[in-house]
């Protein structure tokens, strides 16, 4: 059973009170963008085997969205953080670097 601590309300939530929202830190493209950009924004996914940044909603709790860093190959959770950001917090990146040397995900490493 996956448990994630909701950074919005502090509750240690188990999976059945959460809802996954897919890959995090997508750059949104709208009208005026190129087809390539719009396609990538809507469809192209990292789907990494390893470190993965993703969105979650504490749907049966405080109802708010947040982000989590998780390993899809081991189900280890590295941490959760606020969704009001465009990149993972520096201390979380440092933790991941220590646990997964040589790791990279999109522009983060």
């Amino acid at each position: 059973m996956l448990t994630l601590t909701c950074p919005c309300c502090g509750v240690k939530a188990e999976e059945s009170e959460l809802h996954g929202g897919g890959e995090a830190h997508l750059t949104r493209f709208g009208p005026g963008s190129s087809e390539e950009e719009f396609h990538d924004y809507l469809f192209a996914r990292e789907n990494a085997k390893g470190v993965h940044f993703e969105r979650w909603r504490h749907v049966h709790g405080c109802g708010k969205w947040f982000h989590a860093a998780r390993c899809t190959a081991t189900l280890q959770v590295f941490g959760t953080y606020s969704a009001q950001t465009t990149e993972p917090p520096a201390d979380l990146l440092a933790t991941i670097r220590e646990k997964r040397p040589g790791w990279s995900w999109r522009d983060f490493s």
Partner: protein
Amino acid sequence: MKRYSAFAIAREALRQHTGWDRAWRKASPKKKYDVVIVGAGGHGLATAYYLGKNHGIRNVAILEKGWLGGGNTGRNTTIIRSNYLQDPSAAIYEKSRSLYETMSQDLNYNVMFSPRGVIMLAQTEHEVRGYRRTAHANALQGVETQFIGPEKVKELCPIINLDGPRYPVLGGLWQARGGTARHDAVAWGYARACSDMGMDIIQKCEVTGIRSEGGKVRGVSTSQGDIDCDKLGIVVAGHSGVLAKMAGFRLPIESVSLQALVSEPIKPCMDVVVMANTVHGYMSQSDKGEMVIGGGTDGYNNYTQRGSFHHIEETVRALVETFPMVSRLKMLRQWGGIVDVTGDRSPIISKTPLDGCFINCGWGTGGFKAIPGSGWATAEMIARNEPGPLAAAFGLERFREGRFIDESVAAGVAH
């Protein structure tokens, strides 16, 4: 290859079974092949088989990181049907279903295809309308299906509870020619036939890199050394994203866990497959007597071939509601597979940005039924460097062009 037959069984019985051959040769990689297929699941093996059988391309290697058929092909619940909504889907799934009918003869391997019939229950007014529409679409596509009322559902499957506490059974979409087959046998049968054509099936050989030169594929790096090839087929289901990354592109795919379970064996009590999409569960009975049960996918990206227990609980709850006798059953085994899900719930059979590299993936929760048709279409694409009529609509460019093949209704529950 020695043929399997009733006579061969009798002969071997008389000599203590000492005369059986290995079903496929043990092979170690050559320096170079015309075509390398990554992934010895059903789709990879079928692709190789039809490359040899339909197109005469036999200098082929199939590379498998684990053991042959150990991915989703050996983990699925074996439902075969072709009652999809959209024309391109109906075409490829119906081709596939029809190839299943003669597969045991073609491969000289008993895949135990059992066209026992599949019912997809309609338990809301929405589903009734949806399945009536599908039945009409199927009639136009030449796929034989029928919308049936609750009495007929009960007649076909007496153990069903029509008046469930939440969702009464209002009818169902019935495909009499759908059914099940033995999943391992499908992989083994294709493997034996491929090996017999001189192809190399190399197990415990993980592809770790894809080598290219000037935008054209050159070969692969593997745990057993470098292997060159003129053409490369990536057929790795849940690991498609990993292989795509090696080839330098991304896919519209997420890999998630899908679980299934089987009960203790019991006497025959159900001779059709029943899927209940609204409550999210489905069930059939295997020849051994086990009830084979599946449900929906887990809710997050996962490569571990494990899933969360509460999904099992939801599935069993749905089935107890639909088949009250399930509440008395003990469950024997439970497992997960990593399925490759696309946004429109339709597969990808496509050329890729890398010249000479082709991909077959995105079958998600429902690709066992598609193995022969998909192999047929993928082999055609690799042989001719262009997708043929069965594969044309399933190209990667459909996402860019907004030309989806929306099967989210047909594939409402994993299957």
